[in-house]
């Protein structure tokens, strides 16, 4: 379905519910995984996902169509994650440039984490990154978003994003190479 058609459905009060059902069908899994990588535990991701959809449902009439619908959805999800992490860390504003000291604790506390996988090494590297670096890397590498989309979602300069991504990619490659030697 074309985005324009979906938006028409969503913005018409008579077809809003139908449009919303289609939207959930299209973006549900991708939005969940994007959130999960930021908040780590499944239960937290589920809560944040619910709040994200409530915001989407209430705010769709105000969507100005300056970006793709998917970018707008991921931006809401991203902001909802930042809000959740701030509440979780009891800070007014989460520190994007500092490391998450509880990264491993959160992972191991989650019953939906498979510690048997090669994931351990990967998470060890990710845990050493700042939240900002990790988010940018996740969005590009896992979610396969364009740099321009990441820029709109995070409200950051595109060149800064590129620079962060390539430096993180370098770190990860180096770490993996060292561990396989």
């Amino acid at each position, binding site marked *: 379905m074309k985005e324009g058609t979906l938006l028409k459905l969503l913005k018409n009060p008579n077809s*809003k*519910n139908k449009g*919303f*059902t289609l939207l*959930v*069908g299209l973006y*549900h*899994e*991708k939005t*969940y*995984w994007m959130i*999960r*990588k930021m908040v780590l535990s*499944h239960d937290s991701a*589920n809560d944040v*996902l*619910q709040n994200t*959809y*409530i915001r989407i*449902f209430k705010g769709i009439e105000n969507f100005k169509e300056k970006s793709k619908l998917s970018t707008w959805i991921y931006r809401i999800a991203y902001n909802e994650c930042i809000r959740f992490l701030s509440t979780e860390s009891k800070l007014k504003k989460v520190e994007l440039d500092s490391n998450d000291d509880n990264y491993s604790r959160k992972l191991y506390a989650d019953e*939906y*984490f*498979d*510690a*048997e*996988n*090669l*994931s*351990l090494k*990967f*998470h060890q590297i990710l845990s050493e990154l700042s939240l900002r670096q990790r988010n940018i890397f996740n969005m590009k*590498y*896992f979610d*396969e978003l364009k740099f321009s989309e990441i820029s709109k979602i995070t409200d950051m300069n595109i060149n800064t994003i590129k620079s962060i991504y390539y430096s993180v990619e370098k770190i990860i490659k180096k770490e993996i190479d060292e561990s396989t030697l």
Partner: protein
Amino acid sequence: MNQHYNKLGFKIPQNYFQKSKDQILGTNINYQTKKNKYNYRSTFQLLVAAIFLTSILYLNFSKLNTEPNNFSSESPIISTILLNEEITDEYIIDYLTDKIAVNEIYIPK
């Protein structure tokens, strides 16, 4: 979900996405329906309140229009006004005698 996700070791409960979709659609669409019901109800309530207030006002005004014709011209004060006479003590005393019981008037010692 692309192949790289396997590297993260994240798992989800069985049928999570289907259950979650149903829950989200139920929550948001029910919210909207409830909101609409509430709006219809409040509009109806406003309409009933408006009709009620209009009828009270109408009844009161129609009562006010008829009241001036219901006065008793036998009252000494009214008749005095109607006949354009001066009010004297005599009329007032008569009026008070008629209308007020003597034992209800407090006379200080």
